[in-house]
């Protein structure tokens, strides 16, 4: 269960005229639900994703993820919480270049897993599941972009995180590979009853998700927000 209530956050340089205010009155996602976050660039989709992951802290409001109020966790607890409950997939894959596909997935377990036994076996199993059983010893530069994203998905899955957070996971892929990766994400989320929150610009992709959340209007310039707050009701 994910619940955000009256969350606000100042973005950019605080106190400068260029700073913007992110404000989200309410957002809830049930366990096992699949939600697409849509909206124009800069509307706050990724910010919402990062708030859920605990990569950003809200200035105000409540962010509750997997039974924990993130605002009450200290930095180390927040990192551990993220590692245990959130599997992240990024547009540019974010694999670690010195390590093989298998090691990239093992590193996902190193910091996020609940237990640290049989890491390699588990990582191999997950890579096999995403169709990379024969590429486990390849380093990222030896993999195609589609394969790289599959490794990233395997890394997000391997720690048994209950929430998958995908930030434009198909943004760097050709349409065909993008479709494959999208279906893979949907499939593993459904099979494992994991929550999937997917940021996308692609309306066709978003239409395939059971629920949409339009993020338009979440971000305003700080001065506009201040005028609105001070105006007589």
């Amino acid at each position, binding site marked *: 269960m994910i619940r955000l209530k009256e969350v606000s956050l100042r973005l950019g340089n605080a106190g400068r005229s260029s700073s913007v205010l992110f404000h989200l009155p309410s957002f809830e996602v049930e366990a096992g639900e699949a939600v697409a976050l849509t909206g124009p660039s800069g509307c706050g989709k990724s910010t919402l994703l*990062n708030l859920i*992951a605990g*990569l*950003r802290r809200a200035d105000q409001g409540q962010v509750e993820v997997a039974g924990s109020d993130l605002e009450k966790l200290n*930095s*180390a607890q927040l*990192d*551990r919480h*993220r*590692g*245990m409950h959130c599997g*992240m997939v*990024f547009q*540019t894959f*974010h694999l*670690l*270049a*010195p*390590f093989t596909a298998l*090691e990239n997935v*093992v*590193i*996902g377990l*190193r*910091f*996020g897993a609940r237990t640290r036994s049989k*890491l390699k076996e588990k990582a191999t199993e997950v890579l096999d599941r995403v169709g990379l059983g024969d590429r486990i010893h390849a380093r990222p530069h030896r993999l195609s972009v589609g394969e790289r994203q599959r490794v990233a998905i395997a*890394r997000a899955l391997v*720690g048994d995180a209950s929430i998958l957070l995908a930030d434009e996971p198909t943004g760097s892929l050709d349409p065909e590979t993008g479709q494959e990766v999208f279906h893979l994400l949907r499939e593993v989320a459904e099979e494992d009853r994991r929550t999937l929150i997917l940021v996308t610009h692609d309306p066709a992709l978003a239409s395939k998700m059971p629920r949409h959340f339009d993020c338009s209007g979440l971000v305003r310039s700080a001065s506009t927000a201040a005028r609105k707050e001070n105006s007589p009701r």
Partner: protein
Amino acid sequence: MSFLSMAWRYLRFRWLVSLLTISGVAVGVALVCAVLALRHESERALSRDAGLYDLVAGGKGSPLQLVLSSVYHIDSPTGNLPYADFERFQRDPRILWSAPVGLGDNYAGYRIVGTETQFFDLPDRQAKPFFQFAQGRRFEERFEVVLGSQVAQSTRLEIGDTFFGTHGLVEVPGAEVHRDFPYRVCGILAPTGTAQDRAIFGTLASVWEIHETEDRLHYAIQGSALLEGRQERETTAILIRLKTPGLRLWMADEIRKGTDGIATVPINEILRFQRGIIGPAQKALLTVASAVVGVACLTVLITLHQAAERRRRDIAILRSLGANRREVAVLVFTEGLLLTGAGILLGLLLGHGGLALGAGTFRETTGLLLYPWRMPTLELAALGAIGICGAIASLFPAISCYRRTPIDDLHLTE
């Protein structure tokens, strides 16, 4: 996957930069190790030689020159003392052991030392015989000689072999060879690790005979009749061990007053020599080596800082995977420790390996025996200090990584 193996993989990934950084640390460490080990070993070796004798008596001149010529066989003698002085010392109840040293000739650059057979009775400081024979026996007759171990090794002379001495203390082309007086090898000493390994020991009578014959010829050619007046026999120096070493200074003073020569305490001269001449040179070398180490530590800092800057994205990825601030800082710190540790190990190997390679030449030129793999306490302390410097240098980028917020760097591309 442990921090150590992750750190190792990152270092391997940028192997050239890592190798250059490790080499920088290694060169500094090798210099420090070599200078400190060389200092320790040379001090130990010099003191071992000088510590064998309580006093050295010889002709008037520089006490250091007297010690260097009679104990280390590396300088010209100061002058002579009457042989009668040696006979007088032998009767002195305060003297445990004494031996004359008569110099004048060399063979293949190794000095031929004329002495008496009791020379080989010299006890070490534990009262055990200092000289051991590897082969053969002491000289008994004139022109029989005993070779120091290095002389035997270098000249390949064996028991029963004969050779001719050359006039002078060092090998000079065209120097007069005493072809009428062949020496015969009767014994070879076991290595002592002292300058005695580089000497050839024969009877003092042989030295006198060669030079008196030459003198006789010289005066005969000149038509002089001075020979009769030169009958008093002399010795270049006299080495002395006292029953009570505490009497050294008092005895030295007594010898100075009672003879035409001087007497000195060799260990005091050598310590003065080390502090006055060798010490400042070693300090200068150590300063240079310390500067190299300082630069190397700075290189570790710069390398790690640049690596951390280049890896801002990777650090952010690790944070997104659940690594906390402390863990990423430990990872970067571990990389620094690995670089420093590898540099120290390589430096140790280079420093001591270099000494091991040069030990033979050092022994040939100075006669001092080096134990190149021995590590003096000061060297261990220096290595500890270098390790700490490396750790401090690693701390800065680690702290920088600790402070970063992952969200700032996740947008970065490879």
